[in-house]
């Protein structure tokens, strides 16, 4: 039997998840309800033979599209996921929203919301579904990526990472982000969803000539023109498109380095 490219990606992601589970004390997986984190959950169930042996975290910004929350609650129940939902209660009470500036809003509701969850539970490892092909700074990420005590990413001095020997030792107070999907492309993700028949939020499929390619909060996530109503049609569409995946995500475009600043501050 020869391994296909999807077999190879799957095997590598499973290896990474098992390393994280073995080497770190308190890990959790971020679940944004998007396609990537759904695939990541699926891979965890494969890695641990049907179990998800760590908490699944969802940072609720209260600005998510309603279908996403419905999907979350349904799948969490069906798959018996150990789900923890967190939010930045203070910022929400103070009325934080994209009108305060998109980057400010992301920082307050997502990054600070996440940091609060990490601090509350003392997690030392957070598994996140980012991919190199999404965006330039993510292309430079490590699979095991250290964060400082303030949860910041020191992208100018990243640890060496080779031969699948990951950074699993770290100073008290700091934590690691683990990125099992770093090597996957958007197309790989959809081809894998097709192969494994992984359930997805309906928002990805075209309605009235539009669909979402990337899911975030309602105010900052736009849809793209599309007629793809099935996974197979999405794959076909991606094989021909040259529009970038995050083109519908408004917070990236506030300035040249908007995304870099978001990520350095602790965003996924």
């Amino acid at each position, binding site marked *: 039997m020869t391994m296909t490219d999807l077999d190879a990606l799957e*095997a590598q992601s499973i290896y990474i998840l098992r390393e994280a589970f073995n080497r770190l004390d308190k890990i959790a997986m971020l679940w944004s309800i998007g396609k990537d984190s759904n695939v990541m959950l699926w891979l965890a169930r494969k890695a641990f*033979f049907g179990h998800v042996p760590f908490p699944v975290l969802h940072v609720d910004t209260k600005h998510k599209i309603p279908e996403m929350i419905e999907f979350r609650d349904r799948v969490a129940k069906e798959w018996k996921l150990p789900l923890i939902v967190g939010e930045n209660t203070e910022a929400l009470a103070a009325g934080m929203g994209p009108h305060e500036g998109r980057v400010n809003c992301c920082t307050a509701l997502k990054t600070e919301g996440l940091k609060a969850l990490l601090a509350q539970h003392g997690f030392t490892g957070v598994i996140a579904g980012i991919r190199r092909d999404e965006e330039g700074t993510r292309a430079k990420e490590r699979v095991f990526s250290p964060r400082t005590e303030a949860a910041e990413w020191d992208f100018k001095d990243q640890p*060496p990472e080779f031969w699948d020997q990951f950074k699993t030792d770290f100073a008290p107070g700091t934590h690691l982000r683990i990125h099992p999907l770093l090597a996957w492309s958007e197309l790989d993700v959809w081809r894998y969803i097709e192969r494994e028949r992984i359930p997805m939020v309906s928002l990805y499929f075209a309605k009235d000539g539009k669909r979402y390619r990337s899911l975030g909060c309602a105010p900052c996530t736009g849809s793209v023109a599309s007629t793809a109503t099935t996974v197979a049609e999405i794959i076909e569409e991606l094989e021909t498109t040259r529009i*970038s995946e995050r083109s519908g995500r408004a917070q990236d475009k506030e300035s040249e380095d908007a995304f870099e600043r978001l990520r350095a501050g602790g965003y996924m």
Partner: protein
Amino acid sequence: MSNTAAVRIDDTPAPAFSAAPMKIVVVGHVDHGKSTLVGRILNETGALPEGKVEYLREVCDKRGMPFEWAFVMDALQAERDQGITIDTAQIRFATQFRPYVIIDAPGHKEFLKNMITGAASAEAAVLVIDADEGVQEQSRRHGYLLHLLGLRQIAVAVNKMDLVNYDQTRFEVVKAEIVAYLNSIGVEPTYVIPVAARGGVNISENSAETAWYKGPSVLGALDLFEQARPATDLALRFPVQDVYKFDQRRIIAGRIESGRLKVGDTLVFAPTGKSARVASIESWGVQSLSAVSAGAGQSVGITLDEQIFIERGQVASLAEAAPAVSHTLKARLFWLGRNALKVGSRYKLKLATAEYAVEVIAIERVIDVEDLANHPGAEVGRNAVAEVVFRSRTPIAHDSFLDNPRLGRFVVVEDYDIVGGGVIAEAGGIHQAHKSANITEVAHKVDFETRALANGHRGGVVWLTGLSGAGKSTIAMEVERQLFLKGWQVMVLDGDNVRHGLCSDLGFSPEDRAENIRRVGEVAHLFAQAGMLVITAFISPYRADRDRVRTIHPDVFHEIHVAAELDECEKRDPKGLYKKARAGQIPEFTGISAPYEAPEAPELALVTTGKPADESVAELVRYLEANFSLTARNQTESWGF
């Protein structure tokens, strides 16, 4: 495909491939144009998303500079501000022939660790050299490291030919210089190509500017590289990554690094030499039809027909082709650490899934990558390459890099960081097959493993050392209580208690202290053999005494440094001993009138200064569960789900 075939680029999108993309790394001296070449390749193959070039043009305009192809890869602000690549990046593209992942590696000496990070996963490389500047320090260093990392397919792009007016004579001079260097380290560059990346000359097809050049373009050369040979042809190496017990199955999880295994195969586990048959290959998901065989690259879970003791780090193989097992390793090493490597330095060495405590016992030679001269050296500085011998406390299962790269390479960790990597020059020690031939199965004897299986944890000696008042006894007693409640066989041997009986004839002179520790060590190891987890709480100030206890049975000995500052201990002074010692009432009191030699490489350091005891207790319990428990840690349970 002939050498002159240029790759046709048109507007048709990249087809969907089912083969894994080939990984190519682009290396070379700083500012020789690596990122520009990569940006250009991505553009020529239609890999850039719509609007990317326009967007970058805007960015460059705002910065008041001409268009910069390097910005495609140099996404960080600092990279754009300084005009250099800081960190490695990976981006995909495809030719008509196959898909690629291109890895852009930084050329600045400062970022060698990032260059290695990029280059170590590549199957082939493009070495970029500035036609005007010629071969520079990092051109050679990168060439040498590519060779060390095992890359054999290297194309050289002599870039910025536009700056030398596409002069063939200049090209031949640079070509001769780099070919001579690469040949001297045993590398035959596959192609040497004149290129002007900024103008797109000889990137996708041969350009008129270099009509004298008859070889392939850059993309043509990439398409001529051979895909890496699958590791299924090599002997089976299956390093154990974890052991799961989520349900009634006991699943040995890991990735098959090389070779194949199938249901019914007898696996031998190094270094213990225990063996058992593969009972099943487990899986979950759509393709849950149970497989009967699996091969290199697959992450699998297997069950065995016998419950032999297995833990992370052991390597399964077939008896007829087992890895070597030895306490020493001779390796060629590249060093990335800020502190120099010296004879006598101790590190953690990670090889496949195993970790070893090692000491440098010899630096055989330090290699100058500029002139390839050998220097006998007492230390290996940052970014240097050397041949080094390590000695491990416990035996290391390994292969030579040449025989099996997957088990022939390792990284070195100092404190929290990976500080170097090495490839094993020659496999040493005994081969497991020879050893295992003498092992007879002892199914009904009550041995160490059987006791461990009955108790749910292994026996062991957890040796707490530290100043008086550091918290050893407090932590030991509480850990004992908590583990006992979890059903563990656990026992504390405490300094004061032992001195009333076992060692009542001994005083506090160095000789008596040594004898005290020796007796306690022997007793502790007897308990451990009986399957119990023994926690000892002794100041045990002398390193040599503790090391002697370790040698009784190094596999089960864990040294835990309970560390607190002397003045903090003196402030705590729970037994009023420091006060007496200061008053001269206690002679040879550790920390005051006798030395304390802190462990150099303890298995765990518990810093208790300014911390409630519960935190240290919890940390030690977690450590012991991770290292001695036989059941997979079920974190979900502990989270209250």
